């Protein structure tokens, strides 16, 4: 076994050779260039940037300025050099060598008795009075400096001036404009990331259950029930949307008078509570009669319609109240604005959510009906249902997909948007009907699992930067576009991470809860959720942290946040300014890391 065979050594040799080739190619395509990075100009530039990055522009001072002039003739006059003024003892003075020179000649400027350890420009002042910067000077601890600089191309008959300016900071340090901008933008960034993370978490948590293999693996259903659900979903969505829309219309009649409005908000929940109380008994040993169950469903339906109405009313009230508060609260006006926005968001979302919920309810009722038919029908009837519903379901699904394709690619030819998809769907349904039978049901759980995973993977591979570009088009430049882009990306990334946590829970408690006769939903609530709370908290915090860092990139394309400022400073080559923003991001990330580790400790 362990004998060194020639074949083995040959394989190893080939492997090493292959690795060599791969890395050589890698070097070539990455343009690895070692000569360039050793050149002096590159290195001084790099050093300048690194030094600037380590000196963030955070503070500024009031300045006191000192100017020291010395005359110079450019070029040297025929009649000889002017006498240099004698320096006064204790006063700062400049010495030029040589005292006169040709344009563009190099001169050495020495300064004495300056304020120690200060910096400032060395200017050339031609007769026109403008300042031409020749160099920057920095005095040592004795107040002395010496620098050689090139004279500008300004020949003149007149005597010109070289002026050294040094500045001394006076008074206490103050936050610089850059620091104040950084502060306001980092706050914006943190809250932008918070909104994105919150929105994403709310959606990602339920989605993650659909993307968890261990929960979805065992979910199977008969073809008849799947097909009926496919038929019922669109119908449910239509019903839900129209009922919610109608209730919304009706709610406007109640909002005319404030008294009726508030009264309805108080009475509504009481009605809902009463209906739910009657229709949802705490515990039942006997299976209730079909009529009692129908009556209960009807009561719940009424309760749901009243809830939708109450939601509309509450949203409208919040919107009105918020708008009124916004103008009266002064500095806290943003709270009123928040309430008004919340109200508007709720009224916007009621109809789509009601539509989806109705789709789900009608779909699950139809699925249950299908299951019942599947169990009670036998012989020819069973086959008729199995094949008939299978083909019908496939056709409807094909039509829905065809409609989507038609919209996306703007095709109006009914052959491609109706006939062909319907035929293909019907064939698919037929094939499925042939493949499935009573002992081998449709693996609907795994289908949903793969579908969810595929959509999430596709969504996740689109960088937030690109989503931000689309969002900027939709909602305009600013942090809101950035928040939406980050949210979309976080939903995909979060769902994946969460679902992997669900997949790695201990199976024992799941089994135990199932064995008590719990429903699927109860199993999730009692066996799955307690196990995933700590990882969900830490992933959510981590996501927030990622979103803060990502918002720097989002800002580059106009998605708001600190990235906007950072990019501006980078473009202006103001590395000290940019450094302040980088520092702010680092501080926020470190703080959040600390907070999340504390939270995790508590939650485990």
């Amino acid at each position, binding site marked *: 076994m362990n004998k060194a065979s020639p074949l083995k050594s040959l394989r190893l040799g080939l492997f090493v050779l292959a690795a060599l080739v791969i890395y050589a190619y890698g070097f070539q395509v990455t343009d690895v260039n070692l000569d360039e990075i050793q050149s002096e100009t590159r290195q001084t530039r790099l050093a300048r940037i690194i030094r600037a990055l380590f000196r963030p522009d955070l503070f500024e001072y009031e300045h006191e300025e000192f100017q020291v002039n010395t005359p110079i003739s450019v070029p040297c006059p025929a009649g000889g050099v002017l006498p240099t003024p004698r320096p006064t003892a204790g006063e700062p003075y400049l010495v030029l060598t040589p005292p006169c020179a040709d344009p563009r000649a190099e001169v050495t400027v020495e300064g004495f008795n300056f304020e120690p350890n200060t910096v400032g420009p060395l200017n050339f002042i031609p007769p026109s009075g403008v300042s031409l910067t020749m160099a920057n000077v920095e005095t040592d601890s004795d107040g002395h400096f010496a620098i050689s600089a090139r004279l500008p191309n300004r020949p003149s008959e007149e005597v010109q001036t070289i002026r050294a300016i040094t500045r001394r900071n006076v008074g206490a340090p103050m936050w610089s404009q850059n620091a104040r901008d950084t502060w306001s933008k980092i706050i914006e960034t943190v809250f932008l990331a918070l909104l994105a993370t919150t929105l994403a978490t709310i959606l990602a948590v339920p989605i993650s259950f659909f993307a968890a293999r261990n929960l979805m693996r065992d979910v199977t259903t008969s073809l008849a029930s799947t097909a009926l659900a496919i038929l019922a979903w669109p119908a449910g969505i239509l019903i839900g949307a129209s009922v919610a829309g109608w209730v919304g219309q009706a709610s406007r009649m109640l909002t005319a008078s404030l008294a009726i409005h508030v009264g309805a908000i108080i009475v509504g929940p009481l009605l809902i509570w009463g209906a739910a109380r009657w229709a949802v008994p705490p515990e039942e040993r006997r299976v209730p009669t079909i009529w009692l169950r129908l009556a209960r469903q009807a009561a719940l339906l009424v309760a749901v319609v009243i809830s939708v109405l109450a939601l509309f009313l509450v949203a409208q009230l919040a919107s009105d109240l918020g708008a009124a508060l916004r103008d009266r609260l002064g500095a806290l006006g943003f709270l009123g604005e928040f309430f008004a926005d919340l109200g508007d968001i709720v009224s916007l979302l009621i109809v789509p959510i009601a539509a989806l919920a109705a789709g789900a309810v009608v779909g699950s009722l139809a699925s249950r009906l299908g299951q019942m038919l599947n169990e009670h029908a036998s012989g020819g009837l069973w086959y008729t249902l199995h094949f008939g519903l299978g083909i019908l379901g496939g056709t409807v699904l094909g039509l829905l997909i065809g409609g989507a394709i038609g919209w996306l690619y703007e095709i109006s030819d009914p052959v491609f948007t109706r006939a062909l998809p319907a035929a293909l769907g019907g064939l698919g349904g037929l094939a499925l009907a042939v493949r499935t039978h009573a002992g081998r049901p449709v693996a609907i759980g795994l289908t949903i699992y793969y579908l969810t995973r595929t959509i999430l993977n596709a969504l996740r591979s689109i960088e937030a930067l690109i989503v931000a570009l689309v969002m900027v088009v939709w909602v305009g430049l600013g942090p809101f576009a950035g928040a939406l882009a980050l949210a979309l990306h976080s939903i995909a990334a979060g769902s994946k991470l969460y679902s992997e946590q669900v997949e790695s829970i201990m199976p*024992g408690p799941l089994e135990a809860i199932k064995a008590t006769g719990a429903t699927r939903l109860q199993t999730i609530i009692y*066996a799955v959720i307690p196990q995933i709370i700590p990882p969900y908290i830490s992933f959510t915090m981590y996501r927030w942290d990622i979103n803060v860092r990502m918002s720097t990139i989002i800002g580059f394309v106009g998605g708001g946040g600190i990235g906007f400022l950072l990019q501006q400073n980078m473009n202006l080559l103001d590395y000290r300014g940019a450094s302040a923003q980088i520092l702010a991001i680092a501080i926020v990330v470190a703080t959040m890391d600390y907070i999340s580790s504390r939270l995790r400790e508590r939650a485990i």
Partner: protein
Amino acid sequence: MLSVQHVTKVYDGTVRALEDVTFDVSKGQFLAVIGLSGSGKSTLLRCINRLIDPTAGRIVFDGVDVTAANEAELRRIRRRIGMVFQHFNLVHRSSVLTNVLSGRLGYVNPALSIINRFPAEDVHKARLQLERVGLADKASNRADELSGGQQQRVGIARALMQDPDMILADEPVASLDPVLAHSIMQYLEQINHEDGVTVLCSLHFLDLVHRYANRAIALNQGRLVFDGPPDEIDDQRFKEIYGKEAERVG
């Protein structure tokens, strides 16, 4: 009470975990299931409440065909069969009381249980069960703060909350020391005697089988190789059940 008829379970089309197993259990029996690790004991117990679907055969519990039950019927069967596990299978991060209450999930209204609301009489009952297993003061502790023996007692309390007609115990004492093993087995015995609950219990140690069971069945590579009173397991039978090289311990 329970009738297992020609039950076969094949995993992934190749591993034959159970091979044509047939036996009946009458009400009030304490039946021990013995056999080597991997002989199919756990699979058999899980087939009875269909945590695992048998590949072939029929299981009838109290006149109801378990193998043919739909989801709703299966839940109504499961809630009458309590289950106790080798690794206790408590939800670690939930309180002891919630773990015990979760035994009622098959009875309570699903909508209310989602928001963790249980009827007052269930809560009262859960406290009584905890008192019965001597853990009344631990109700609000987290389950993972308890020792192994205490966790298994919570597991028993959870099974009792189901008002079970039968309890399936899958190696309930295999993770516990001998002293604790006897105390847990005594709880099961008490439930069997006082409440008349049928018990199916898989066990490793023959002295426990002799001490507590009034009937034993043995599995070897998925086949039923013994069915009778525990006293009949002599050296000859022992070698049939556990293989020729096996030696008796304990």
